[in-house]
Structures are given as C-alpha cells and as structure tokens.
C-alpha cells in the first residue's frame, strides 16, 4: 500500500510520516509534492501547519490543487489541522479562499483572551489535550472511546454550514467542530500524530478504512 503525505513546503511532516510508518510498517509512506505520486497513492494524507494563506499559496505554487481534489474525490483522504481548514470555502485568516470541498467558513477563536469562565482566560492558540465528542459512529472512531483526549494547537476553527458533515466536536469557550467526514474524506483539527494511543488508533483506522 502506498500512502502519500502531501508536502507543499509548509512545516514539518516528519511527525505525520513517522506515526503512519509506526501504525503501518508494511506500507510505503511517501512525503511528496509530486502530483504523479499523489495520483498513484492508495491513500492520501493532507496535513498543514502555519497560516492558511501561506498554505493555499504554496499548494498553488506547486500546482497541487488538481491532484488534491482528485484524491479527495476518490480515495481515502485524511486532512489534519490546516489540512482540514483548507477543505472549506473560506477562512477569516487573511481572508483566504479554500478548496471548497466542504461548505462553511474558518473563523478565529474570539479573543484575545476572552473570558472562558471557571478556568479563567481563554488563551489563543488553543494548545494542548482536549476532549473530542464523537458525533455518530464512523470507522475512524473505531476503538476510540467517546470524549477521548487529542492534542490540539490552533487559533482558527471550521464552522461548517452543513451539520451533516460534523463528526466530532470540542469545547473551548465555545463548542466547535473538530472533525468532519463525508464519503471518503475524514478531516480533523487536532493532531493524531501527536495524540499518543488515541491518535495512533485513528491513523491505524485510516490505513484500514475502505469507504
């Protein structure tokens, strides 16, 4: 099996590839910016770090948009962090258009340091381990208990305009969508590659997923 981790020059993809190699030792995990390799992969992971305007610009600078859209149409496709945000229509971050695969917008946590009630101020970025409430069953949640903690680090979150795609939610001052799914696409705001056993289980589920 060949797993492509899309590299568009933003940030460090080693964590993602190492975690995939760990859960799928016999798979060929390729960190790549080659559209041909992405097209030939059985599964595609779309990660992201940094700012969404830079990410979108780099995707287009490498002419990767067609390969990403093709993969998202037909093969198991996992978006992570900015890789989730870019699937939406629009982001407040730099007023950036996304890939438009999902209806909705990406918004910033209201801040700075908005009142979060009992535990005091709400720091942005939302950084650390938070609970993920599963919304409905999905093969990628298999073996992961509801409200398990995953590692987050982000200042923006997706606000889908369709409830149907929401498959996970997290509380941080507000209740926000942290996982979306439709057909062969699953995308998460948190970092499964940094979320210890729950994260590794989700990646293993992705490797064996046959949507």
């Amino acid at each position: 099996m060949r797993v492509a981790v899309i590299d568009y020059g933003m940030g460090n993809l080693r964590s993602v590839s190492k975690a995939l190699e760990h859960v799928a030792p016999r798979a060929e995990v390729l960190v790549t910016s080659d559209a041909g390799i992405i097209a030939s992969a059985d599964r595609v992971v779309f990660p992201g770090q940094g700012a969404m305007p830079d990410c979108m610009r780099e995707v287009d600078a490498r002419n990767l948009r067609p390969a990403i859209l093709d993969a998202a149409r037909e093969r198991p496709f996992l978006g992570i962090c900015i890789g989730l945000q870019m699937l939406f229509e629009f982001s407040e971050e730099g007023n950036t258009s996304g890939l438009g695969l999902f209806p909705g917008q990406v918004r910033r946590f209201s801040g700075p340091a908005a009142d979060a009630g009992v535990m005091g101020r709400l720091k942005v970025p939302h950084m650390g381990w938070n609970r993920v409430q599963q919304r409905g069953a999905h093969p990628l949640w298999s073996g992961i208990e509801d409200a398990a903690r995953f590692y987050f680090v982000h200042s923006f979150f997706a606000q889908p305009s369709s409830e149907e795609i929401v498959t996970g939610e997290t509380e941080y001052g507000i209740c926000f969508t942290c996982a979306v799914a439709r057909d062969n696409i699953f995308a998460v705001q948190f970092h499964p590659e940094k979320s210890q056993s729950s994260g590794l289980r989700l990646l293993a589920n992705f490797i064996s997923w046959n949507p």
Partner: protein
Amino acid sequence: MLAKRVIPCLDVTAGRVVKGVNFVALRDAGDPIEIAKRYDEQGADELTFLDITASSDGRDVILHVIEEVAAQVFIPLTVGGGVRKVEDVRRLLNAGADKVSINTSAVQNPDLVAEASGRYGSQCIVVAIDAKRANSAPVGRNTDNVGSAGSVSSGWEVFTHGGRKATGIDALAWARKMQEYGAGEILLTSMDRDGTREGFDLELTRLISDSVDIPVIASGGVGGLDHLARGILAGHADAVLAASIFHFGEFTVRQAKEYMAARGIEVRL
C-alpha cells in the same frame, strides 16, 4: 475542557540526561530515549529537551536523540538550547521536534522569533524567559544590551546565557513583546527558584500568565506535587514543567497528574 499539561524536562548533554542545581553539580539521570519512553508511558503531555551542550561541535548529538525519540514517542516534543538561526529551527523540526524553544538568541535578535514563526508558524515557536527578581540581581550587571534603559518596572528582569547574564529588560514587557513577535507559547523559568525545590515563583507566573494571550509554562523550583498544583491554581499557568522530581524516581508523571486531579485541576489521565 482543555487539560492543564504536565511536561517533564530533560537536560541533555553528550547524549545523556543530566540534572544539576543552577547548572553545576550535574547528576547523570540516564538515557534520553529510555527516559522519554518512560514518561510517555506515564502519561506525560509533552516532553521538553534542553540541549545544554557548551560547545557547538556537540550540537548534532541532540538531533540524533530527537530523531530516535520522535520515531517512538507520539506526543509533542520541544527542543531548546543553542538555537541561534532560522536554520537551527529548521534542522530541529526536521529531526522530529514539534516546537523549538528560543532564549538567549531571542534577546540578542528578536527578529529571529518573528522570522521563525513567520516561516514555520507560531505553534512551533516557544520563547523561553529566564527571569529573576530585580532586587536580587547581582552587582556588575551587563549593560551592553539593555533594552528598556534598565527600568524593570514589573520587578522581574530577563537573564540570558543560562541565567548568567543580566539584560536590564523587564520580564513582563519582554513577554508581551515576544507574543507580538509571533511566539506561540512562553516557557517561564524563575532563576530565583530554579533548583531550589521551593516551588514556582507564583507571583511571577501569575503576572506573566495573566498579561499575555498565549499559553505560559511555569518552570523552576518544583520540589513536590503540591508545587505543580499551585503553579496552575495560584500561578495561573497553562502547563507546568519539572525535571528532578521525575528523573530520580520520586514521583511518576501519573502520580503528579492524579494529585492535580484530586485538587480539582483538569488533566489528561
């Protein structure tokens, strides 16, 4: 609810974890890869590695350590020590670090923080601040790079070079400035408390944590589990960092988190 984090810190030199008091009398605490795996199993929320190698030719050792740890431990890894250029940040991230901590070089060249966070994202840039109560600052302070004309209005001054060099910079103003420059997090160490086992400087921690919008990690002085809890409850820290209480088997990370949970603190158990 977002959990407060417990972060064991591993001081690494020549491929070994060591711990000393104020950077002297180093005790060997073991192999960094074994220790990292142990803390991961105990439920550590992140790991921080500080490369305390004095000479630049030993720097590559930390890259190998991080590569090995990153292949086996799937929680966030922060690496600091000797980061001077954006190229240093890149090499550490490529080796498997998730965040890079910048201390002395941020004072010498604040633009490094802006450049590194601009290129790799704020989420991976931690600014480490070593702060000391101004009235306890040593005489003969260095005035070469005074940033704010020696006025330390918050009462805490920033030190660099492992706490050896006074800067004249106010710690609170500095923390705010580093947030503006793109730091995603602040690792705040009290020089007065570091190695004393008397607990965090809670006043300092609360002052900085309440004054910035980014998360603050409290560090310096942990001698028992109550210190960790107080860092969160009284110091308003988002995360607590400790070294020696974990290294020498006094407490496990899990014991620390269970204690904190019993004090009403949200932790990942």
